[in-house]
Structures are given as C-alpha cells and as structure tokens.
C-alpha cells in the first residue's frame, strides 16, 4: 500500500465507561473543595515546579476528573507542595491536599489493583 505520510489521529473522545475514576472519587470524598475548580489556571501560572518543567496542576486536575490517570500518575510526583497555588486560587481549592490525596490514591490503586 502506498504511504502518503498520513496517519489516523488518535481518538479524542473521553470514554467515561472505560476510564477509571477511582482517583477523582477518592479526592472528591476527602477534599470537597476539589469540585470548586473552574480550571482558570492560576495554580499553573504561579507554580514553582512549572517554572522548571512542564507541569500544570490545571491540566492534571482536568485529567483526574476525566479518569485519564496514566499521564497524571508520573507527573503528580513532581509537585513540591510549596503551597503557592493554594494561596492564589480564586475558588479556595485546597490544592496541596488535592495533590497529596492524588498521590495517596495512586499508592492505594497499586495496592488494591483490580
């Protein structure tokens, strides 16, 4: 078959049935302010880690909610918990606790793997 250099782009739909929303639920139950996020990106703008490397808490929060955990699992460890994002958040989301709970959830996910 002739190769023209085109590929089929990966599917971009969010499949809530297939995605594991365990982490999102874990965080939501323990830190209710997680629901308040409006994805404004203030946290990412002020981030100490984001200053050095590609790390955006806004992006990670969105992915956690969708249940697309693979990218979050490695990236969430990069956070230094310095707490600037909590201070700038206009909605009062306790972001430090969100990150800590996400790390906890991933540890437990490994322990009780389905």
């Amino acid at each position: 078959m002739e190769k023209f250099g085109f590929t089929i782009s990966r599917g971009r739909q969010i499949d809530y049935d297939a995605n594991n929303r365990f982490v999102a639920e874990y965080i939501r139950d323990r830190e209710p302010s997680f629901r308040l996020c409006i994805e404004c990106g203030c946290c990412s703008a002020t981030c100490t880690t984001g200053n050095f490397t590609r790390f955006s808490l806004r992006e990670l929060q969105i992915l956690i909610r969708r249940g697309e955990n693979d990218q979050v699992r490695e990236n969430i460890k990069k956070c230094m918990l310095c707490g600037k994002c909590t201070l700038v958040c206009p909605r009062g989301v306790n972001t430090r606790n969100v990150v800590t709970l996400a790390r906890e959830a991933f540890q437990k996910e490994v322990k009780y793997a389905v």
Partner: protein
Amino acid sequence: MQFDLFVIPFNIGLYFILIYAVARSVLWFMDLSRSDKLRLQRGFFGRSFGQSLKEIFLESLIHRKILKSNFRLGYMHMSLAFGWFLLILFGTIEADVFGESHLNAPYKAIFFKFFNPDHGRYGLEALFSFWMDLLLAFILSGLLLAVIKRFSSRAVGLKKTTRLKPLDKVALTALWLIFPSRLIAESLTSGAYETGSFLTGSLGSVLASFLPASQLAYPFWWLYSISLGTFFLLLPLTRYMHIPTELFLIFARNSGIKTGDQSGAFREMQVYSCSSCGICIDACQLNFSAGITNIQSAYLLKGIRNYEDVSEIAHNCLMCGRCDVKCPVGIELTPIRMISRRNGHAIHVEKNIIKKYFPERQQQVQIKTKGQPVFSWLPETVSEKTDVLYFAGCMTHLTPSIKNSMVKILDASGMSYKFLDKEGGACCGRPLMLAGQDKEARELINYNSQLIWKSGAHTLVTSCPICYKIFRESYYLDVEVLHHTQYIKMLIEENSIKLRFLRKNIAYHAPCELGRGSGVYDEPKAVLQHVARLQKTSFDDENSLCCGGSLGNMKISSQKKSKLAHDAVRELTKGNPDMLATACPLCKKTFSPVTATKVADIAEIVAEALVVPPVKRIIPQMNYRINEPARII
C-alpha cells in the same frame, strides 16, 4: 502481728505497680540508643541529678508551671500530687514513730488508723493527727475541684477539658473514691474510739451519734483498700501512667536527650508523660477560633498510647507550636507530631488488654530511602561565587514587594550579594517535610545545598521563616543562615544603611516558624523600634498567634483558615495601629485580605524608611541636592 484481710487488694496493687514501674523503666532504658544511654548514665550520676530532683519537686509535686498559668487548675493538681505525697510521707513517719515496731510494711502506714484506733489523744500524737487531718483536707479540697471540673470545666479556668475513654473513667472513679473512703473510714473508727483531730474527729463524733460506727467502719476500710488497689492495677493502661513516667522523663531530658526525629524510647516516654491536663486544648487556635476540638496534642498522644490510627489527627494541625510552649510537662509535641505524620497510617491496632501492659515497640515504619528520585528533572546547579546569598523563597516570590524591598535594601547597603533564586528557584523542602514526605524533601535539600556550596557563600539571607527554619535545622551547610530581619539589624548596627524615623504606630505579629519555631523574637522588634513606634499587643513573643495560613495544615478548609486569620487580626489590631508588621510573606498574604489595616513585611517598612546614601548620587551630579529628611537615626 497486725494484719487484716482487707489490706490484700491494696498490697496486690502496690507491689504490682512497683514491679511494673521498675520493669518498664528498664525496658525504656534498654530501648534508648547507645549514645542516649551514656547520656542518661552521665546525667544520673552527674551534676544534673540535683537539677532533676529539683524539677521533680517543683513540677511533678508542686506543679509550678500550671500554678503560674492557671491557679485553680494548678491548685487541683498540686493538692492531689503534693498532698498525697505528704500524706504517704508523714503516714510512714507516724507509723514508724508511734506504731508497734519500726520499719513497717507499707500497708501499716496507709491503714494506720485501723490498726491503732486509740492513737492521737494527747501531746505529740494529737499534733500529728491534726497534721494528717490537715493534709487530708488539703487533698479533699483539690478533689472537690476535680469533680467540679469534670462537670463544668470553666470553674477551674479551662474552657475545654479532655474527653475520657471507659477505662480512664474506671480509674478516675477509683481515684476519686480513695480519699472520701479514707475520710469516712477514719472518721468512723475515730468516732467509735472518740479519737481523731478536727476533721476525722468531729465528723466521726457526728456520724457515731446516730450510726453504729464500729461496725460500719470495716466496710469502708475495705472500700479504701479496693479503690487503691484498682487504681494501681489500672494505672498502666490509663493516662495516670504519667505519674511514674514523668519522673523518668525529667531525668532523661535533663541528661540532654532530645526527640529529634527518632521514634524511639524517648518519644514513647514523652507520649506516656502526658497527663491530658487539657492546657494544650485551650492554647490551640483550631479550638478557640475554628471550633475543631478533636485534634489537639492531648488527643494525639492519647491516640498513640491506645494504638489508634492517628494520621488524620496528626495532619490536622497548624504546627504553630503554641501547645509546645504551654505544655506544663514540657513534652516536645510538634516533633512528635512530625514523626506521626511521617509514619503514615497505623497498620496495627492493639486490642489485647494484657499486651497493652507491655506494648510491643510500635512497628517502626521504615522511612523510604530507595526508589526513583522524583526531582531528577531539576536543572544542573550552577552558581556564581559570592559572599552573601539572598534566597527569597517561594512565598516571597508570591509577594514581590518584599523581594523588591530586600533588593533595594541590599543595594543600598553596598554589600556584594547574589540573588540565588532571582528567576524562581526550587522549594526549600519544608512544605514536603510538613506533609510527612521526608524522602522527597531530602532531594530538594540536596539540590539547594549544592547550589549554596558551589557559590562559596558564607552568609545566606532568606526572607521566608519557613525556609529559614529548614535551612538551620535540616541542611548541613557551612554558612551562617540569617533571616532578613536579623540581617537588616546587622546592617543598621554596622551603619551600612541609614534609616529615617517613620511617625507610625506599628503592631508586630511574630510568625510561628520564626518565633516559636526558631526562637527569633528580638531582632524583628529591634528593627521596628528603630524606624517606628512599636505597639504592644496581648499576643507577643511566645504567645503570638498563628495567621492561619500555615503550610502545616492541609486538612482545614479555606473558610476556617480565613476565620483564623480574622480572629488573629482582630486581636492584633486592638490598639488601632497604623500598620501591622510581620516578618513572613505567608503571614502577610494571609492577613492582607481580611483587614483594613495595612499589612507590611519588615523589609518593606525598612525600605520605605531608607535614606538613599547621598554618596552614590552626588558624585556624578554635584549640584543635585536631595531634601534633608525630617530626622535621621
């Protein structure tokens, strides 16, 4: 031979508790690290022995610290501890002098009246029984306060008192029964034989007038013995374990043993030394501002003693250290909490009651040291050589006016310095440490240490008390770490910067990490006094409040945080100052939105008062004259 069956419960209890105390002390001693063992031996046979005895007398018996802070509560503790001690001491002397023989078994002193009912009629004997009655009255007055406290804690000046578990209640009832039953038993015996002094004698004659005193006395002697025995048997399982443990703790502490980050025997000793007096509950801002009443240090230590899962309690704390300062036993509460945070969730909850008497060494959670590095993506460390380094810290970058003020001051001083994290640096590691993630924090510490080493600096100035604390405590650096208030004070003393006097009233809020955390109280105030009029507040120095923004607590909601900030600011601005000064960017950030008073960091105030040195400006343009400031100091 004077003996009666009713002394058996008391004897069992007494010999059990004596043997138990010795066995437990030996176990604790064996669990100490080698160097701590040597320290304790040296302390025990050395100079600090006298000091320890003095401290035991003043703190364990007289309860001087509680008396100072709260007289009624102190009196309650003193009358029970010191009164009981004197009662035992003089009871033994009485039995020795007036008894049938010298060197009696302990029960003969305790139940002296039963075996010598005729004692105390004339002369020295009467004087002695008067003294014993006085002691009993002293204890009973304290006991009355304790009973009132259980039902209304405000009566003894405490807003909240500790909640008890069932076993504590049984032991408490036994303790409460001891002295009234002694009173009634002695009174009835005295009434039957017409002896006794002002208390037992008069009560005895009243009771004997309408009751068969000689028959009724015997059951009350039984009750007295049983309540003593029960109390002694339950003591190791309840908070009353603090009575023997505190003695051991005082010796260990005076020998120079510290908690540090060891979860070993010394920590366990401190955990058992807590008497749940409740002073930490009243000191806690989460209690009196935010209404969270189940996480205070007394409950943390109780949870550890009972082998409960304390991770939730351990994390819900501002780590402000107010309870550390107030604790009458001097337990290092914040370090113990840090250890609990690091240990994570408890795995094992002990249910077996017999095992509780000799708890196994709490399974030490190994601190992760292996595994993939998390912060390997941090850029290579490159540093320029310099003498003085300025490290702003994350929070200072969030409040750029502090950073700019510091740059202005450092420029004006003419010192050669380098701004280490001008473009934003890595975090100092303390926030991770406060979250109990020690391994990750160590990585950041190593990274920053390399940066500082490579610069060859001898002084490191930081604007953030959080960074300041960890730089001093957990970094192994060969540099002098200074908070910017300390550095500014040094600059003023060296005459490197000239400041004018701002005609303002300023109230100073001492940040937790700088004040109680690192013991820096005087320098910030000295700097402020140099440039303005410093107002006193009712929360100065060790008693200062937490702003509520603390990185120590991840669990409280933003509403409660702002409630804390509101309450703290209201207290601090009671004197209507023109400005509220602080030395911490986080405190500034937390206070600014909740008050109409201007909140400023000391660096900003100093930068405002700065008189730009004329030398630098005048040399290029000679005819340029700056206006003379109102007053130069």
